[in-house]
């Protein structure tokens, strides 16, 4: 890698701890400031530009170091850690960040509710002040990792008498606290990646609040912003679902049909253009000139996943009629490749829903990038408790 001094420290760390357990190695990485290098010193980083991260990960991988816990702790890495860094107290940073990186503490996100999906600011889970504690009751849904999580980031309503965006507060919640109940939510694939989470008079100390009372919406926006700022490495051609499809086409000539070929090539072209566009966004970010946000990328990704998985089934024909396993399973990491073609087709339907529906993201593009006016809203200015529902 370009930075020789950094490369030296990485090599040293790998030589000293690289053969031990993953958690111990990752703990050493954190202590050396080589976890999230854009975090400040003492909090797992070195205060370097965020753009250095991918080179560092490449270097660790090149030396055969144990991988990060990113795949098991998606919410911890992508959402909780940057939010704690930005809005947390010193004590919260000291205690919470390290076990996120090591994977010892898995995190989940308690944002969405049955009545608050696209309209996230409408959350109804109530937190009522009781001395140094908050008493929290309500229902959250679509919660990945809740069944394995130790901690959650939680958005709850602390003031129902003001308009919806202003009465929210952001907390760190202990998933093992009395009154927290996690139930598997079975999906259309048969498995249960997600959960429903019920809070019944759960006591959360005020010291577990992230940011000011009533400022939860801003903290939540920060969480989502951070997620979009993540910079990955350069993707290779035919990585992802289109590669799976292309491999099938090459390996099984007897399945080829002309009309399917036309669709295959359209998907291939769009996937390659998407790869180039992602690479261009990455280069713009590295050059310190970030382009408009990643909302468009997520819409495109979902469309490509859905188009490719649907075509895979059609190419397979009779074999596409088979589903590997309808049993209720509890995957602990996201792996869209596992489970066969029918599983991929069904699971991809979630790509245009999770993390913001494509419809909402198109609104975001239209309003924030193109500057088109918002639709008239019937709820603006009304106190949350007076909203029509």
């Amino acid at each position, binding site marked *: 890698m370009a930075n020789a001094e950094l490369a030296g420290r990485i090599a040293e760390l790998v030589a000293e701890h690289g053969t031990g357990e993953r958690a111990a190695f990752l703990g050493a990485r954190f202590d050396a400031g080589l976890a999230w290098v854009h975090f400040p010193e003492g909090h797992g980083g070195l205060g370097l530009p965020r753009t250095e991260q991918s080179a560092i990960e490449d270097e660790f991988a090149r030396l055969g170091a144990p991988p990060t816990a990113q795949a098991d702790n998606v919410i911890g890495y992508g959402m909780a850690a940057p939010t704690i860094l930005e809005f947390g107290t010193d004590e919260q940073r000291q205690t919470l960040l390290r076990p996120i990186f090591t994977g010892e503490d898995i995190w989940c996100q308690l944002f969405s509710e049955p009545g608050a999906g696209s309209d996230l600011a409408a959350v109804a889970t109530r937190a009522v002040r009781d001395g140094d504690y908050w008493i929290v009751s309500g229902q959250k849904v679509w919660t990945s990792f809740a069944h394995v999580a130790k901690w959650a980031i939680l958005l709850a309503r602390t003031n129902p008498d003001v308009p919806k965006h202003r009465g929210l507060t952001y907390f760190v919640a202990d998933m093992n606290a009395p009154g927290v109940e996690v139930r598997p939510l079975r999906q259309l694939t048969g498995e249960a990646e997600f959960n429903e989470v019920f809070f019944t008079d759960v006591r959360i100390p005020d010291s577990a609040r992230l940011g000011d009372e009533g400022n939860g919406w801003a903290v939540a926006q920060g969480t989502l912003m951070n997620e979009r700022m993540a910079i990955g490495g350069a993707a290779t051609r035919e990585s992802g679902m289109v590669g799976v499809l292309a491999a099938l086409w090459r390996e099984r000539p007897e399945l080829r049909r002309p009309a399917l070929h036309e669709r295959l090539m359209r998907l291939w072209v769009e996937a390659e253009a998407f790869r180039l566009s992602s690479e261009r966004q990455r280069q713009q970010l590295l050059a310190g000139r970030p382009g408009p946000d990643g909302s468009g990328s997520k819409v495109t990704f979902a469309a490509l996943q859905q188009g490719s998985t649907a075509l895979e089934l059609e190419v397979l024909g009779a074999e596409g009629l088979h589903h590997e396993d309808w049993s209720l399973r509890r995957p602990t990491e996201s792996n869209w490749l596992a489970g066969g073609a029918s599983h991929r087709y069904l699971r991809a339907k979630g790509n245009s829903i999770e993390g913001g529906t494509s419809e909402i993201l198109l609104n975001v593009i239209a309003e924030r990038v*193109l500057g088109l*006016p918002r639709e008239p809203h019937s709820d603006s200015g009304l106190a949350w408790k007076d909203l029509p529902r």
Partner: protein
Amino acid sequence: MTTARRLVMTEDQEALRTAVRDLLTDHAPWASVLARTESDAPYDIALWGRLRELGVTSLLIPEEYGGSGGDARDLAVVCEQLGAFVAPVPFLGSAVVATAALVAVRSEPVAADLLGQLASGGLTAALAIPATTVPGADLSTTVRAADGKLTGTVTPVMDLDGADLIIVLALDEGEPALYAVQPDEVDSTLVLPITPLDLTRQLAALELAANPARLIVRGLPALAAVATAVATGAAMLAAEQVGLAQWSLDTTVAHLKDRHQFGRPIGSFQALKHRMAHVWRRIGLARAAAIAAADVLVTETDLDEIAMVIAVAASYCSETAVFAAEEMTQLHGGIGMTWEHPAHLYLGRAKADELILGAPDQHRARLAELVDLPPS
């Protein structure tokens, strides 16, 4: 499998973009482009002169031949702006396709001489191949050379009418060869203009009947030069299409903010916002693909890789430009159907652009061969 391409503009390219954009804003407003379509001079010679003064008409020509010595990445920056203004100049035919053919054989004295004339004399040139020639396809010609004279027909040829120099692919005793036909040697009746769908790009048929011509090069280099010219043309057309699509989007978004119905700006209706967001999303992909296509022409040595990246850009950008122009026409409602609004200039150009230098399905068929995804 692929090295990372440079997909962001340099500061020099940003400056070039601004210079071309400013020039076109001043000298190619759409009202004058529209008025010109029904005049006797469909191409704006004065505008061509200004582009020449800026040095952009000879970007592909190396400095030792009198050109401004840029590269295809710089050229793409110019083409994007020309597409955005649907500028009525023979840029694609002359400064891109014909020039690329001559540059490819510049070691031939005749080619070097002609490049010098193009660079310093401000001449325009046309490469006499059908405008629908597909990159990577086997090249053929019905023009025959005998005793330094050419006979045969080529149609439709872009930017032919008014060209000072015509480069012709001919068969000379069965061997391919490139010839140059100079203006004073061409009987004007041999260039037969075609009324074009795209009012901003001229097409004509070339009918040669024993016209005298200068031999440029014979054999495989002649075919290779034409192939390079077609590939370069397809890549630069992709950049034009990005510019056209972006203008269509910007214009439509402005209209949706301004136009009120039902007591609201129509841009506040979600059904229309989503359509605009999709156009924007596709342009982002198209722009990256077009930049990559220009980049491979400069940095890549693997011919299959060059062809592959260009095929991706050409097929995606063609369809994106048509999509953006059609959305513009629809979302302008009745206004978009009128002659007085420029939407039709963009629609006609977008649709015609889709058909030239390879249609999207032809690019994808070529791509399928290159990436080993056979149709059956």
